[in-house]
């Protein structure tokens, strides 16, 4: 079943066309990679789905409901969670409080939110940091904390913006494990990624953007043999 349907979405900033008639879909529980060279419009597309940009035209359906143009907080309520390129953890809080704040989307009770938050910290392998300030954690730990925080809103789809960028190989493996665990929970993942070694083995589908348009869509094998994709990445 189609969970997320992006239909003919265009986004223009004045004269600059960041996305042109992009369409793709994400099924329930699927891991989809959104890749492309620098300036391809991946992050713009991502921000349109998460509500940070309103598309100039086109529609974005989540479970059949059009969420295009809704503000981020409404998208979060509708079931879209996201992470950022830099973790953007709440640095005045402990790791547990970070996740608690997100869990409060569902119920405002602090004690219940703490319980939910601890479950998600265990899920992300961060329970030993529960009472430590988020600011004292490493980049890789903070990124996983941001994932735990996003999951605590109980999303139907999680958008991850370059979770693996700048990580060392063992940290990439940890990040990959987390993505697989999220999929096992039935939550779909849309991942913008530069690190292709990380995303290729775990994605059910890859969508390739170049200069604002979709140039390929398919399984990782199909996409990596696609002539247009090879040209976009390596040049003519």
């Amino acid at each position, binding site marked *: 079943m189609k969970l997320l349907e992006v239909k003919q979405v265009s986004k223009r900033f004045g004269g600059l066309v960041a996305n042109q008639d992009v369409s793709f879909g994400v099924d329930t529980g699927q891991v989809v990679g959104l890749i492309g060279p620098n300036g391809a419009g991946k992050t713009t597309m991502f921000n349109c789905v998460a509500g940070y940009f309103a598309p100039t035209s086109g529609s974005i359906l989540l479970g059949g409901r059009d969420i295009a143009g809704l*503000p981020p907080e409404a998208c979060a309520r509708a079931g879209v969670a996201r992470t950022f390129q830099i973790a953007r953890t709440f640095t005045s809080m402990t790791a547990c409080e970070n996740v608690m704040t997100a869990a*409060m989307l569902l119920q405002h009770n602090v004690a219940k939110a703490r319980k939910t938050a601890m479950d998600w910290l265990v899920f992300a392998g961060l329970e030993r940091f529960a009472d430590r300030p988020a600011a004292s954690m490493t980049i890789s730990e903070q990124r996983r904390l941001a994932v735990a925080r996003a999951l605590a809103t109980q999303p139907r789809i999680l958008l991850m913006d370059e979770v693996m960028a700048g990580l060392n190989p063992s940290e990439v493996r*940890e990040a990959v494990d987390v993505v697989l665990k999220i999929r096992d929970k039935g939550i779909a993942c849309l991942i913008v990624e530069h690190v292709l070694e990380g995303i290729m083995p775990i994605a059910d589908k890859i969508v390739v953007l170049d200069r604002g348009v979709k140039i390929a869509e398919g399984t990782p094998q199909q996409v990596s043999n696609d002539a247009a994709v090879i040209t976009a990445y390596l040049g003519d």
Partner: protein
Amino acid sequence: MSTMKQIIFAVAALAFALAVPAFTDASHLNMAILILMAAQVGVAWNIVGGYAGQVSLGHAAFYGLGAYASTLLLVKFGVNPWIGVLAGGLLAALLSLGFGWSCFRLKGHYFAMATIAVAELVQIFFTEWDYGGAAVGLYVPMDRQGWLWLNFATKLPYYWLALGLLLITLGVNWWIERSYLGYYFRAIKDEPDAARSIGVNIARYKQVALSVSAFLTAVGGSLYAQKELYIDPNSVLSTALSIKMALVSILGGVGTLFGPVVGAVVLTSIEELTRIAFGGTGRGTDVIIYASLIIVIAVFYPTGLLGWLRSFRERRLARGHASRQMALPAAAVQNAGKETV
């Protein structure tokens, strides 16, 4: 500070506050009242300026509105000040909607500048408004006294009123700090974009912080009017007053429950002692000390006096437990090993 220590500190401070009238003369009691009133507006300011991180330099507008509302209602319509206090608070909360609507479009320094402008408009309005006493100001009549009319010939009842109001304001902050609102406010302060991503409507919650803060600030303004028995735009609506409210919090420690109380004790003491030492209005020496304090805090102790004390204690603890710290890396390695398996 752990919760236990916080409670001990609070109980000790409360016991001290309850004992103050027993061993002070009238002039020192007046200073104690000024401290309590400065602390109360600082604590009220801290809700929006500290917890939610929206530094307002226009809070005098709410203070003045509270003072004018209760005084005008009393003078012109004979309305009981207890009702006037509530009316002033509600009016300020209402005004805060316009305040937020116009200023929250801006961030950081621009927000602070816009709040100065809005407060300045309110001050100009009251300076020109003849019915409201204009620049001459308003006197609170003393014909009806006692607790029913919040009007006393002696200072002591005002001390209890100021203490009671401070405790209520602290109670509100204590509740906010522990409820989801406290978490949302801190999230908005730390990372507004991330807060939105987890469903926090930041425009709405900034407004909640501002409205609660405005209500409590206005109540403080009404109390000022009842105590001083005279108000004019300069005494309850000036930008200097707005800055003082922010400064009390910043000096003590923004976003902490007791920070503004500590800040008010230090700041008001400096203000009053320089006046006593140099006569008159201190010939501006209090302002010199104010300014020096701001510079010292900004450069060396951006987390305020409480933050400085905390880091001081942490450093001492870290030295004391240096040997225990040595064992930590080994434990960390073990944990890391467990996780990859």
